[in-house]
């Protein structure tokens, strides 16, 4: 039975209230306005007053517009037909393909029982040395890319999407610029990854509320695919936009803001999304990479700060490169002892030398005299930046490790590297002097 009401009591921000009976919390409704139809979700019930958050925004809503309650919470279609398709934040196709409405699944479902989780142990290769060698991505990991506006974080995501060793990709865009959206689409099409990708795209010009649904839609679909045995990589960009939408709704609902206007439950809201990353024993997995732009490059801003407490490490993208300092994959220890014997040694050794290079560079910029060791470090630093850190470097882990040894051999004597002698014996390039 569907209930139709046509008397809107109040409109404030994107929230409208209506008098209605027998309505369930978080139920969906459809509003028909002169502009067309929009979905809305129940976010508060008080006696017979129902507050609804209108996905398309409240602009143009007339107090006598028709509201039809659908009797169900937000759901999304789930099938293999979704591959290669593009949906908006309401789960409606935004490409010209046919509507999909079979096999609806609930979004924002219950969380996984911690007792059913397993210790992650499979590496996901991306062919990006700064990730594979230095901060390996692990199946079921949740990692943000901390960045600032203007950095090529979407390029990085697109590359990971095309190269990552997973069965399928779900890409969620929140508040993307239209050209960024087109960029993703074209890149994945060019790279031939389109047929294993599902898009949920919300652009900056779409209604704010729709952006809020994107992470839940992506993760619900990903979870379902994972339960069906697929290893899924979910890419979300940009979670700061998501948090800002939360803030906007919270303020409209007159909730008491906690920190810089963000609602007090920001941590729980972000966590309930990020914690969807999981490895199902005996089935597939969900891995989550999300960009978080840091307003003012400030990592103590509530969004990156709360995110850092939730995620298993972070990548800092600065100056077009993944920073070796600060970037951390908390799960890398679980996998990088099973790749190649020299993996950990190269990882630690090269970073320590890079730290020394940074000091030498600082000394140089302050006008101190450079000694022989300093000059070696400076040479090393340049090679490290161009051969490893540069985002255009696109080689598998083993090649990257070999390149690491080559760089070391070009700059140092074996004993200067601080690496274990048995590894040096095995891996030090023989043909270089």
């Amino acid at each position, binding site marked *: 039975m569907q209930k139709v009401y046509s008397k809107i009591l109040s409109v404030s921000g994107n929230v409208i209230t209506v008098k209605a*009976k*027998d*309505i*369930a*919390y*978080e*139920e969906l409704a459809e509003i028909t306005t002169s502009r067309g139809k929009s979905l809305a979700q129940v*976010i*508060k*019930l*008080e*006696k*017979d007053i129902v507050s609804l958050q209108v996905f398309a925004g409240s602009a143009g809503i007339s107090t006598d517009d028709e509201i039809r309650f659908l009797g169900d*919470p937000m759901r999304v279609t789930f099938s293999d037909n979704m591959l290669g398709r593009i949906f908006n934040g309401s789960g409606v196709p935004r490409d010209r393909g046919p509507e999909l409405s079979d096999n609806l699944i609930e979004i*924002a*479902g*219950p*969380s*996984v*029982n*911690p*007792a*059913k*989780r*397993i*210790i*992650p142990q499979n590496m996901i290769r991306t062919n990006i040395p700064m990730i594979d060698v230095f901060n390996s991505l692990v199946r*079921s990991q949740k990692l943000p890319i901390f960045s600032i506006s203007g950095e090529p974080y979407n390029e990085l995501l697109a590359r990971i999407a095309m190269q990552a060793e997973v069965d399928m990709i779900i890409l969620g865009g929140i508040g993307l610029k239209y050209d960024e959206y087109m960029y993703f689409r074209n890149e994945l099409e060019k790279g031939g990854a389109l047929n294993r990708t599902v898009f949920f795209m919300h652009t900056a010009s779409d209604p704010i509320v729709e952006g809020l649904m994107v992470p839940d839609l992506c993760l619900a679909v990903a979870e379902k695919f994972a*339960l069906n045995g697929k290893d899924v990589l979910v890419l979300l960009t940009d979670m700061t936009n998501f948090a800002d939408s939360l803030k906007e709704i919270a303020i409209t609902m007159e*909730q*008491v*803001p*906690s*920190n810089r206007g963000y*609602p*007090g*439950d920001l*941590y*729980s809201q972000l*966590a*309930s999304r*990020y*914690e*969807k990353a999981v490895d*199902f024993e005996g089935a597939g997995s969900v891995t989550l990479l999300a960009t978080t732009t840091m307003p003012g490059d400030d*990592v*103590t*801003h*509530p969004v990156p*700060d*709360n995110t*850092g*407490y*939730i995620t*298993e*490490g972070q990548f800092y993208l600065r100056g077009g490169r993944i920073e070796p*300092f*600060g970037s*951390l994959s908390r*799960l890398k220890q679980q996998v990088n002892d099973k790749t190649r014997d020299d993996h950990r040694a190269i990882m630690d050794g090269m970073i320590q030398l890079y730290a020394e290079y940074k000091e030498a560079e600082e000394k140089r910029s302050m006008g101190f005299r450079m000694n022989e060791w300093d000059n070696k470090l400076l040479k090393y630093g340049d090679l490290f930046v161009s051969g490893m850190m540069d985002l255009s470097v696109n080689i598998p882990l083993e090649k990257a490790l070999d390149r690491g040894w080559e760089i070391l051999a070009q700059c140092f004597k074996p004993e200067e590297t601080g690496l274990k002698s048995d590894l040096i014996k095995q891996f030090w390039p023989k043909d270089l002097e």
Partner: protein
Amino acid sequence: MSKNIGKITGIAGNMMTVAVEGNIIQNEIGYAVTGDEKLKAEVVKIQGDTAFMQVFESTKGLKIGDTVEFTGEMLSVELGPGILGMVYDGLQNPLNELAEEHGFFLKRGAIIPALNRETKWEFTPSVKPGETVKAGDKIGSVKEGIFDHKIFVPLHLLEEYTVKSVVEKNEYTVDTVLVKAEDAQKTEHEFKMYFNWPVKLPIIQYRDKKVPEEPMITQTRIIDTFFPVSKGGTYCIPGPFGAGKTVLQQVTSRFARVDIVIIAACGERAGEVVETLREFPEITDPRTGRSLMERTIIICNTSSMPVAARESSVYTAVTLGEYYRQMGLDVLLLADSTSRWAQAMRELSGRLEEIPGEEAFPAYLESRIAQFYERSGLVELNSGEMGSLTIGGTVSPAGGNFEEPVTQSTLKVVGAFHGLSRDRSNARRYPAIHPLESWSKYVSVLDDEMVQNARKILSRGSEVHQMMLVVGEDGTSQNDFITYLKSEFLDNVYLQQNSFDEIDGATSPERQKYIFKIITSILNMDFNFGNKQEARSFFNTLRSKFIDWNYIEMSDDKFKQQENDINNLIKEKSNDAESIQ
């Protein structure tokens, strides 16, 4: 007892308002009925006929007018044998059993009793008919793992009771009536192996609370020596993300010399609990020879689990801790992280539309934190035995800034502060406890004079380091430079510790005393160096020898060899080499 029925009148997030006739009890539990699901909720505010209730589950699908069944009971836990080794959520639902029944996901409204009703325990009675008993008196005991689990007269009973009948020594389930007794009015009472206790009330059925004095050994050098914690004391570990709070807690849970460890994973990453969940059963506790899990309880309400249950999880944990303390055991409760608990209070307060305090935390934040930590303590029980509950809580301050309300409120009530620093963790100096900013009011395992002396050198060394950043090494006097090297030496070989190494990760107090004495003599020694370069290379060599030493078992022959090596090295450069003996 009231068994009221109410009707839902409003829902926002996890808060609902319920119209109810008759009595309502603050903190009473009720179940919202939707379809075939029953969602647990707790009364948090009463106004006239309206109860404000926080729901421990997702409120999705609830409707105005839905029934709420009240229980007449406050939020309680079951206390009895079978708690050790369990993994519970914040409301004491056993997670492994839930997983068996419902699979990967936490099904809404699923409830399984905390104590297994089928397990049989060998009960040995210790009372006879005709004896009088009161709350907290022992009526017998069962063997739970390596411990004697005492069975008490339920702690909430207020009167004296005359025992009428007692079962014989045999195996019983927790549900069996073990003792029948009468109160003064000749009303009969039945005592079972377990009883319920409301989590928000402290258990105070003991004779006396004492001042914590005996150190609780963590085997982490910087804690035991510099910032010790006493049995029955409290401490907090604030630190920004990535500074190693959780690793430090994990190491403590493994190596601390206590009887029982309760880990309350409150609103943190599920992945971190999983490591404990999967690894602890495999690790042998060196003191008992049994699996570490047998003396561990895990309360696990991770970040994506319902917020209201997160608020209760620390209370559940502390109540279990108090219960085992009643048996005369030393219990350590590690809460990670109390900030998430405070945030849960903040969310609740916001939903209640209370006037917010600083950073929107409720005005009662401070008193709640104080009440929680005050449930720790060293107590003399009615039996004359001593038991202790030590509480260590991590704090995750927003932006790593210790000026925020949760850190500040916590600092007011704890006995020790282990502040983690981002600089130290960036420099890979683990554990990243800041040696100058941290403090402790408890007594060190080592001689106080030696510790003070070492702290002086650390602080002087840090001053010299600051100066050196401005004037460079050349502008620093040789004496200052040596002080700096000494402080770095102390930092490198003693304050820093490799948690992942079996030997270095756990340093016994005996070893701490032994090594620290030698370090102290080095710190006080006059050295004879030609120039700074020589001093630096001497300390580099000394450092690497010392670190190697840290990795050698004390009982190993190599331990003495290495010590001689170090002595010889020092003799070469020292003006008063004899002082080392």
